């Protein structure tokens, strides 16, 4: 058992290492041009060489993403609360929300640029637009899936809708909520990066485009790695918070 656990813990790192080694071997063996497809060593090299640059752009992308993500949490939770607590709101808003979610968010960037100009505005809003939907859906689902019996038990005691929502609905939707944060934070990074590629003078997205146009493929890949690391760290952070705060949801499935 213990052995199995340790294996699971290390598995992603082992896999990563294996991929990197194969990648390096292939690049070296076939002498792939560093301008077309850089080897891991080359990317590492570039990463070190431009670390100041990468750090600066990463920081920008990071805080822009976090602002957009914060906005997404506030709006997502409020919308989810409204949709999940009223059947009418659910019926009215859900189809529209789904349609909106199907729109490619990159298509909003030019519009946002017209409204807010080049820079932070479009990036924050793109990150927000792409990441609030899963939060809304999960909060709404958590609230809407209340056992009718439990609702009867409480209603007969004179519980108001509000009581039921606060005592039962919200705690019940917490695991859904944290689950959605994990998904939403990765989406938010996508939003920011896409927006920066089109309309910014700073950020990893901007770095990717300018490195690409200067044929600095190593640097472009290094930028991708930086986004990947940030997204992964944030994902793990929210996964950890989820585990800490809603242990009952994970263990509950065994008992029932």
């Amino acid at each position, binding site marked *: 058992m213990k052995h199995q656990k340790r294996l699971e813990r290390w598995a992603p790192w082992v896999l990563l290492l294996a991929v990197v080694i194969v990648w390096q071997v292939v690049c070296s063996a076939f002498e792939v041009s560093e301008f077309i497809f850089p080897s891991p060593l080359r990317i590492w090299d570039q990463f070190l060489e431009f670390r100041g640059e990468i750090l600066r752009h990463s920081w920008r992308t990071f805080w822009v993403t976090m602002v957009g993500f914060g906005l997404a949490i506030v709006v997502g939770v409020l919308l989810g609360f409204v949709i999940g607590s009223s059947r009418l709101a659910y019926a009215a808003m859900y189809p529209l929300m789904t349609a909106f979610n199907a729109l490619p968010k990159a298509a909003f960037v030019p519009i946002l640029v017209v409204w807010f100009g080049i820079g932070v505005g479009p990036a924050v809003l793109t990150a927000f637009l792409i990441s609030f939907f899963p939060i809304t859906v999960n909060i709404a689902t958590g609230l809407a899936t209340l056992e009718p019996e439990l609702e009867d038990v409480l209603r007969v005691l004179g519980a108001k809708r509000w009581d039921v929502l606060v005592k039962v609905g919200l*705690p019940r939707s917490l695991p859904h909520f944290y689950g959605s944060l994990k998904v939403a934070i990765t989406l938010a990074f996508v939003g920011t990066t896409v927006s920066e590629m089109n309309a910014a003078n700073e950020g990893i997205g901007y770095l990717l485009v300018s490195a690409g146009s200067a044929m600095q493929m190593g640097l472009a890949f290094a930028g991708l790695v930086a986004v990947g690391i940030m997204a992964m760290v944030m994902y793990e952070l929210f996964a950890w918070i989820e585990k800490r705060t809603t242990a009952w949801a994970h263990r509950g499935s065994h008992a029932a």
Partner: protein
Amino acid sequence: MTAGAPQGFVEFDRVWLAYNEELLAKNQFAVEDITLSVREGEFIAIVGPSGCGKSTFMKLATGLKLPSMGSIRIGGERVTGPLKFTGMAFQAPSLLPWRTTVDNVLLPLEIVEPYRSNFRAKRAEYEARARALLQSVGLAGYEDKYPWQLSGGMQQRASICRALIHEPRMLLLDEPFGALDAFTREELWNTLRDLWTQQQFNVILVTHDLREAVYLADTVYVMSKSPGRILIRREIDLPRPRDLDITYTEPFVNIVHELRSHIGAVRGG
């Protein structure tokens, strides 16, 4: 108030219920023409095939649904909305998995008046009461465990405690032991019997288990399949206190058999 007529604790007077206007217009009723009178402290059981409106009856008796026709009086008052002096438990224990067992039992006190207003101030007292109640149903040592650490039977005991914590005058049980194995079920019959004997609240037990109904109740009502009507009222004159041995005696078996034949007739017709 009808002068002269004996006033029971629960009085159903020619009660009809259709779930909505549309069904009412089509004359499709979930329950029809229910008339019954229950004494204070009486334990009644309602049996019948599934889909006979037993659960509808529960909703009427708690005031969660109001009758389309006829009237219901409980405790001398005409029912016009949810009755706070009732407690309910269902086949699914529906405990909240993020609360400990004792916190689950305390939940009603956070909602119902007068406990709600002073819940913070008197929390210690209420918690002691909840613990005592849990101990009385054999859950000593499990008060601070989470529901998912309890077996199905234990969860159901806790669910019944939750229904009783605000000392209701009436306990409504909708197939509460339906999901349990036979041995656990019989244990819980006795738990319920003891609680009822001590506290003398009214019980309305909805079940499809005839032995359960006859073992526990003072009076058994048999309902017909949709639309739900009361076919028979049978007083169970077995002596109290009853214990499980009685379920193997001839009078008991005869009553069960007699009721069973009525249900058979319902099915056939």
